């Protein structure tokens, strides 16, 4: 088969025609680099989304009033009341691990001459057990007695401690805030950190993130438009969500569509689905550019065969067989497109890394994709190189030698 000799020959031919070889490879380079860049960006995005959701826990869900259904006006009794929450907990003792009203508030605060904005998130007992990425640096998390005693306590992030108190350990300090138009002094009982999340970096929220016992954020009547839940993670989240929803609508004597469930798991599935579809669509466009690249290779190989007709004649006169000539040209086109594939892979990874570095995301490059891309480009080279190579191989030696 003379594979080794033919590889050397092909490399010499490519080297002696650098510009042309490069232009020929361009189609493949563009095709492969876009495939690699897009799949890598897609995979990285999926990875980030996955991490983001994992931070909240895959068994996290919200149940809230469906705004569309409430357009004709909502009645006070439609809101989710403490007794509804209790009923849910009693009805699903195993499947609901955590259920509290979903309440949050923002407030300016001042410590001496230092100012800042706090974003207060209402939590119940054991919240940190479910949202696993919270690390307490000093003090403690909001606990049962804080929640049940409706105490004015707050757990703040490290950044807030450093910026407002000029020290990391701010436990025991006091923060003045406004909740539901009422001034309150909250005692810092803990300082925490969470790994930076994509959403934070993307929205650049300037408010410090803090946790408070949820009752202190509630209005007097304790009514809620939404609840946050952590569920039995062994079970299908969508099915569980539907059970909760129908139970709640039954006790509230409402249409089941009156309440909505937003489960982390199904949201993630939806996002991944969109990302997947996007990857496929753009991947298909990239595949078309690969085909165009392949046609470019075929074109240049046909030119090359014509240019080298005399050489082919000489080789045949010296005893080259049809198969030898076929292999020579086939290997050349495979090598051209494989080199294009390698350059395209490097370029694609570079594009993906640069693009992702703006979003401060680590690129995920699937080695399978690289093997597939380079392999596929070689196949493109083989497929589109076959016709020119056969044309070369079938040349009549006398006619080829006579060619000028």
């Amino acid at each position, binding site marked *: 088969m003379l594979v080794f000799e033919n590889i050397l020959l092909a490399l010499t031919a490519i080297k002696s025609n650098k510009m042309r070889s490069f232009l020929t490879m361009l189609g493949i380079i563009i095709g492969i680099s876009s495939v690699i860049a897009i799949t890598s960006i897609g995979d990285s995005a999926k990875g980030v989304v996955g991490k983001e959701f994992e931070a909240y826990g895959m068994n996290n869900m919200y149940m809230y009033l469906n705004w569309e259904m409430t357009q004709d006006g909502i009645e006070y009794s439609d809101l989710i009341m403490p007794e509804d929450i209790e009923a849910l907990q009693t009805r699903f003792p195993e499947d609901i691990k955590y259920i509290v009203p979903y309440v949050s508030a923002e407030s300016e605060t001042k410590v001496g001459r230092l100012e800042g904005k706090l974003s207060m998130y209402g939590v119940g007992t054991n919240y940190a057990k479910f949202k696993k990425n919270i690390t307490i640096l000093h003090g403690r998390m909001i606990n049962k007695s804080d929640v049940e005693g409706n105490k004015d306590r707050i757990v703040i992030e490290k950044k807030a401690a450093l910026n407002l108190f000029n020290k990391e350990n701010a436990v025991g300090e006091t923060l003045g805030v406004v909740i539901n138009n009422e001034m309150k002094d909250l005692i810092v009982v803990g300082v925490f950190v969470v790994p930076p999340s994509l959403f934070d970096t993307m929205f650049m929220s300037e408010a410090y993130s803090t946790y408070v016992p949820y009752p202190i954020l509630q209005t007097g009547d304790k009514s809620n438009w939404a609840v946050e839940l952590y569920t039995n993670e062994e079970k299908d989240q969508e099915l569980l969500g539907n059970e909760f929803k129908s139970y709640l609508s039954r006790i509230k004597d409402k249409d089941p569509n009156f309440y909505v469930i937003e489960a982390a798991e199904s949201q993630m599935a939806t996002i991944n689905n969109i990302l997947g579809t996007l990857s496929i669509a753009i991947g298909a466009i990239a595949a078309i550019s690969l085909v165009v690249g392949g046609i470019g290779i075929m074109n240049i190989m046909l030119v090359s065969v014509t240019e080298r007709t005399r050489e082919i*004649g000489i080789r045949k006169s010296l005893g080259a067989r049809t198969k030898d000539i076929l292999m020579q040209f086939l290997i050349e086109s495979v090598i051209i497109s494989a080199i294009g594939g390698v350059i395209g892979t490097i370029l694609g990874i570079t594009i993906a890394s640069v693009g992702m570095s703006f979003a401060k995301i680590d690129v995920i490059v699937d080695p399978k994709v690289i093997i597939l891309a380079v392999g596929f480009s070689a196949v493109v080279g083989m497929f589109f190189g076959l016709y020119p190579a056969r044309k070369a191989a079938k040349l009549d030696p006398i006619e080829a030698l006579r060619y000028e």
Partner: protein
Amino acid sequence: MTDEIIRMETLTKIYDTGEIQVEALKGIDLTIHKGEFIAIMGASGSGKSTLMNIIGCLDRPTEGHYYLENIDVKEKSDNELSAVRNKQIGFIFQSFNLISRTSALKNVELPMVYGRIGAEERKERALELLKNVGLEDRAQHMPNELSGGQKQRVAIARALANKPHIILADEPTGNLDSQSSVEIMEIFCRLNREGNTVIIVTHERDIAEFTNRIITFRDGHIIKDEVTKEAGAC
């Protein structure tokens, strides 16, 4: 005779160019023996190259028979003809036909590449062949860095790579000055003395004088076939 190497029987070659048909060889009967040194002469267009191409298995006859070492080439497949060109025949052209952008050494190695000879042996032998034609110091030169006479010597070295017994040269001195022509002819003489059958096409009488048999063509026929010397006497 037992040592006949080439025999043609009423061999014709017709080039079919679609509209007109050119009968380049019109019933050739010819026998060539091992060790002969033959010159083929004749006017332009008389069919000399056509005959050489058929002898060299680059082309097939239209009618009649060509026996190479007693085997009718009609019986041979294209791959077998490739093997014949590779092993049994060394072909030298007027225009040298070296592969450009490929060193003299690599050019000489080519027939051995197609003969599946290993890289080391190939290189060693190619250097030896270049030495035999006085070009050991030009091994790494590209064809465009060589003179006409040097190119033709590289071509001869290449033709001899697989030790063929038949050497065919179609106007080997056609592009060379008289000094280089004589040098080339001396190489052919040496090859003939070593027992090879050498057939050359030439237009020049003094080149033909080197050989021991002169065959003259006109219009696709052999019109004269004279033995001038004893075989191997050059």
